């Protein structure tokens, strides 16, 4: 081949690179490994990474069962090794599946349009807020303190240079957004209110009342949904103007935090300010139905610095996992699945209430709850780890005002015996601390 292009050596190909910058040594990385060695390396890492533990963690990343056909189907090279469907005639598989994804997200969220995906729930929320700010022409944003703390951090990063002041509105004794505080925070400059429901504590927000307050002040309501399975049994936030979702619960592995699947859904009239790819239905020259990427004039490759977002590559393959999951469970299965989550959580909360204080009892919740204890959450978790149980997420870092509190999550995969074991170990702690107190009292006596 070199000869046919008139060159003598491979080095000639790199002649355009000034000699002083060329690397004349091997990269300092390990030698080539055989496939068997690579597999061994990652198996060893897996063993150091919580393999075989029972977990009560949720907080934006949920352990649900993944039907096996998800991996069978997404492993087909025609899905796995294609790219963005720019050439519609040879991408109808990807395009139709995205169209179905958009349609099902609309059915589940009660919105009129949904995009083809965003990076994740946190960036989707930030982009949804920027969209609402563009639509209202007002720049400030009221954010619920009960929104996932890391979503808040991401929004703060995105907002820094957009001239978008953020105001935080707190939560009440029932764990829901404090409506009085919301009323006080909203001004004539507020472009939107951003909440999460079910919120970070698992509590379902009073979306209708929040929407009313936002709308009467001329602001939009953006609702983040981090636990998609809730949509099977919890009424979607139909009063919202924009919904920013994390669809990881729908068949996407936990994968230590990613890749996940964000998505934005909204009203038809707002579609031209929506970021991200969109697939639309059309016809070919013979009048046959087909699908194309559409409304690209919102996007960076056409509009450059005037685009609605810089997003290009999204999470297509993960959206396909979500699509297959939604298809498997469908109209009846999603509801039954959500019901099991609710039943497990209700049982767990009732058991935990015997050993600690379950906060926010005054409002409905989905599959998470906050337990306050006398003992430090990390000490409790240390004891549980000895029994291969990962306890709830200690909240001190995010919500110091809650004291020793942890966020526990149950899904359809959480067994009663695991719940009972965790509660038993919690009891051991409270029994021990009671005994220690007694002994201490005796010593003083």
């Amino acid at each position, binding site marked *: 081949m070199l000869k046919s*292009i008139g060159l003598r050596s491979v080095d000639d*190909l790199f002649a355009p*690179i*000034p000699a002083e910058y060329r690397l004349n040594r091997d990269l300092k*990385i*390990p*030698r*080539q490994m055989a*496939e068997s060695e690579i597999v061994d390396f*990652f198996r060893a890492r897996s063993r*150091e*990474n*919580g393999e075989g533990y029972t*977990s009560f963690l949720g*907080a934006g990343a949920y352990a649900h069962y993944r039907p096996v*056909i998800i991996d069978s189907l997404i492993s087909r090279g025609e*899905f*796995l090794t*294609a790219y963005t469907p720019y*050439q*519609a005639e040879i991408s109808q598989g990807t395009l139709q599946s995205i169209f*179905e994804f958009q349609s099902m997200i609309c*059915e*589940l969220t009660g919105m009129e349009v949904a995009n083809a*995906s965003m990076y*994740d729930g*946190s960036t989707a929320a930030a982009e949804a807020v920027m969209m609402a700010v563009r639509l209202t022409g007002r720049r400030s944003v009221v954010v619920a303190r009960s929104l996932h703390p890391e979503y808040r951090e*991401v929004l*703060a*990063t995105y907002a*820094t240079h957009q001239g978008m002041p953020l105001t935080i509105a707190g939560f009440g004794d029932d764990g829901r957004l404090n409506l009085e505080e919301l009323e006080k925070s909203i001004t004539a400059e507020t472009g939107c209110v951003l909440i999460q429901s079910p919120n970070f504590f698992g509590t379902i927000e009073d979306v209708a009342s929040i929407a009313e307050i936002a709308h009467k002040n001329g602001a939009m309501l953006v609702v983040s949904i981090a636990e998609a399975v809730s949509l099977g*049994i919890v*009424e979607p936030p139909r009063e919202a103007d924009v919904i920013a979702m994390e669809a990881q619960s729908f068949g996407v592995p936990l994968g*230590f*935090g990613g*890749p996940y699947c964000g998505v934005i859904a909204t009203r038809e009239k707002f579609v031209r300010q929506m970021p991200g790819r969109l697939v*639309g*239905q059309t016809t070919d*020259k013979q009048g046959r139905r087909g699908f194309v990427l*559409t409304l*690209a*004039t919102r996007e*960076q490759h056409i509009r450059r*610095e*005037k685009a609605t*977002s*810089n997003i290009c590559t*999204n*999470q297509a393959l*993960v959206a396909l996992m979500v699509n*297959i999951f939604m298809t*498997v*469970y469908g*109209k*009846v299965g*999603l509801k039954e*699945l959500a*019901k099991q989550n609710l039943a497990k959580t209700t049982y767990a909360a009732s058991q935990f209430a015997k050993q600690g204080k379950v906060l926010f009892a005054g409002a409905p919740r989905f599959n998470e709850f906050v337990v306050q204890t006398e003992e430090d959450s990390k000490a409790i978790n240390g004891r549980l780890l000895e029994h291969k149980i990962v306890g709830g997420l200690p909240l001190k870092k995010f919500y110091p005002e809650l004291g020793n509190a942890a966020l526990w999550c149950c899904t359809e995969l959480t067994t*009663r*015996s695991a719940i009972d074991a965790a509660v038993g170990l919690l009891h051991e702690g409270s029994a021990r601390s009671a005994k220690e107190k007694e002994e201490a009292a005796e010593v003083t006596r």
Partner: protein
Amino acid sequence: MKQITRKASLQVNQNEGLIFEKSSAGKAAWKLPPLDVPEVDTAKLLGASERKDLGRMPEVSEIEIIRHFTRLSTWNYAIDLGMYPLGSCTMKYNPRVNEAVARVEGIANGHPYQPERISQGALYILKTLSEQLIEITGMDAITLQPAAGAHGEMTGLLMVRAYHQSRGNARKKILIPDSAHGTNPATAAMVNYAVENLKSDSRGMVDLAALEAQMTEDVAALMLTNPNTLGVFEQDIHKIADVLHAKGGLLYMDGANMNALVGKVRPGDFGVDVMHLNLHKTFSTPHGGGGPGSGPVAIKKILEPFVPTPVVVTKPDGTLAFDYNRPHSVGRVRAFYGNFGMFVRALAYIQANGPDGLRQTTEDAVLNANYIRKGLEGTYDLPYSTPTMHEVVFSDKLQAKKGVRTMDIAKRLIDYGFHPYTTAFPLIVPGALMIEPTESESKEEMDLFIEAMKSIAEEVEEDPQTVLDAPHSTRVSRLDETAAARRPVLRWKPAV
């Protein structure tokens, strides 16, 4: 119609409606285990928040789902089927061992908030990949958090802004060559910088004189793709860096084309201050029909204080941990730690190649692009004769005389069994054909491609209508994109 080449032949494929059209009540593909806790009264628990109806969600059986998606898949072109020379996208082979290791139990199912004590495996992967990417780029530090290239650009520019801010002046604008990806200007706008275009010279490179004239102390950075979108290495790169640095500006490198450099030259050695990588391009993680990507950002020491939180650190006892205490950080750009599953795949790719393999990969990618250039030179117009690295850009100038444009040639290429090249980009080449074979293609496959492109050029002369009406072999012919945008139908609704 001209007899099509040896590469492709027609095959029957299955028709398939939308999943909603197959749905009927009572069909199911799911089964839950019996509940081991008491049943609950959802109405009582949820009150007004209880959902009663799931709209028109489908009800179908498992075999129907398998057939549905398998049929859809057969309507796609993919790397696994053949050459996918989509310029700028680096459609290289996606090794399957990457997929296997990403699915190992503790790696696929690790929770992002599980205690660090039982996350040492994941932390070690983050640390190892970071170190190896730093060595490959010649930079000093890295963040893996950004979810895609454009997200990396945003993260990089946030750090640029924070750096200038820390020196008392955030500056006002970003210089961007006219050959740049659309994400570059869109990103600059998201970080609230004004965009100033920089003209390319007759070689397709940054015009040094223009750069010198435009470089002021208002310029925060130049965003430069190198090799650029013409597949040309910016030979004056050190002078470019000097011009920027002399006025306190920074050099941002869009690493979309890093696959032309790995193991041969390191951006950190030629003056780059900040750059992003696309793991789904250079490091073989699958494109998946449009993602997930991953866009790590590598930086020089001066930008290190500003990296997103958290960062991985080694504790005195030798164990790994996340450090959240970074007072100068630009903050988080994503929840958790990034597209971890892609880190696993990229690391497996680096391991499978090692230093020799990575260097050869680069050499093969550049050799292949030059082979195609040689094969098609003369048949298609080559607007820039500057040496080609990993991709080559032709124009449709010769074919346009017959009324055939780059998109028509692209559509005809489909009939020959290839995915089209990138059309109409970069913008500085009117009617561009941007071809990137990658290292994955054999000489045989490229010979078939060259033969197909030559055959199409002949068709343009003899029977342009065949090309204008292409493709002829696909399930659907050219689709009406104008109608799709004028009256958008973005979701299924039942026929009334």
